[in-house]
């Protein structure tokens, strides 16, 4: 590496900082994700008749579906901004390792998703009087699930913005590949809410960790091929 090139960590951090600063000024991504999440929960409320008996078994599913949908919205937007104004070319020209771009975008996407979750979860708890979702285990599963989802989502959104069908394509590409992470998360967090024994939660939790590691590694390795011109 050239002596003037910044380290991977520094470059990654710079990209995260750029994304967060831009978002702090426009707030268009976060507000869209938040309003959308609220609407999804509202629709679920009527579609599933979320009364007290039903709630116990479906809370995990409702929350994860909401986050998955809101997540695609954020992923699409965050990559489209880079592509539309030619920022991606600028990033690619920068004398930094390509993986810094991947990790930078992934971390800022993850930050957006976590912010949305941090607002939606208390809202859900208030609306449905559901305090069991504040357990540390539940929040841990939320973090692990979001990491896996965002890792593969960042890679696929970098692909989908370069196609003719762009926004339409991302959920179609992402959902089937992200099925394991969503299912394992729902299974684990559902188990935590219903107070299942830890041994029962351990298997989906392990698979979640495996998925996270495997997909971060793969996305990091193939990201070069996705952005190269």
């Amino acid at each position, binding site marked *: 590496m050239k002596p003037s090139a910044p380290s991977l960590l520094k470059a990654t951090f710079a990209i995260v900082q750029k994304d967060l600063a831009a978002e702090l000024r426009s707030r268009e991504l976060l507000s869209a994700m938040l309003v959308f999440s609220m609407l999804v929960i509202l629709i679920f409320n009527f579609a599933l008749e979320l009364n007290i008996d039903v709630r116990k078994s479906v809370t995990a599913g409702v929350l994860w579906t909401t986050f998955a949908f809101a997540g695609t919205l954020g992923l699409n937007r965050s990559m489209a901004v880079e592509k539309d104004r030619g920022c991606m070319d600028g990033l690619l020209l920068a004398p930094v390792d390509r993986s810094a771009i991947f990790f930078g975008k992934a971390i800022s996407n993850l930050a957006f998703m976590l912010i949305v979750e941090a607002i939606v979860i208390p809202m859900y708890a208030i609306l449905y009087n559901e305090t069991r979702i504040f357990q540390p285990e539940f929040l841990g599963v939320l973090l692990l699930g979001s990491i896996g989802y965002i890792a593969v989502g960042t890679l696929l959104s970098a692909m989908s913005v370069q196609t003719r*069908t762009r926004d339409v*394509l991302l959920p179609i590409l992402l959902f089937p590949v992200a099925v*394991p992470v969503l299912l394992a998360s729902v*299974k684990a967090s559902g188990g935590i809410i219903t107070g299942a024994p830890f041994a029962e939660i351990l298997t989906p939790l392990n*698979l979640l960790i495996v998925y996270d590691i495997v997909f971060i590694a793969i996305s990091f390795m193939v990201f070069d091929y996705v952005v190269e011109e």
Partner: protein
Amino acid sequence: MQSKPIALTILDILSVISLGVATYFALVFAPTELFMGQVQRVFYFHVGTAWVGMLGFILAAIAGIIYLINKDMRWDRFEVAAVEISTMFFFITIVLGSIWARPAWNTWWTWDPRLTTAAITELIYIAYFMLRAGIEDPEKRARFGAVYTLLGGISVPITFMVIRLFRTIHPVVIGNESAAAQGGFSMSGDMVTAMLVSFAAFTIIFIDLMWHRIRIGGLQDKVEELKLKVSM
């Protein structure tokens, strides 16, 4: 214009014959299953098509990796051929499974791990075609296709493991003794023979179709090239 290779014609004829032989073995040679009766005969083709379906998806993922390393368009053509043929065969597997499931489980479809995984696998590869359709630049199309088959190839086994956490009712015929409760059955010697014949037949058909599809892919590229030359 290159003419069709003679070996391919021979393979075509061989495919038709082997399909006929496999049909005979499945419908006539294999004994009728004691509890399920004639409908069990669909099993031989179900397993045969499932086998080539899986084979194609694995080959496609390998071809994708090789493409990413050496950027040779031939591997892209190989990958597309494998995915296209396997998606079709896998769909046939699902349909045949449904035909069997209706009398055996009393339903066309159930969200059992294997069935769910099969459905998701189909969706991944349908998404693969949508991805390719959205990209004009052939080199970029090949690159993205390779990346996506790689992701799909890794995601599918994990999906299967995750869904396994929920209970399964799909019979495990090979290497399972007590499967009868799930609609499974122990195979007699003739049944095993019929199954192996079906495996062999579908493998020959798969190779034949692959060859055709790769050849068409090559011709397609040549046509594109010529068109470009004419327009310039």
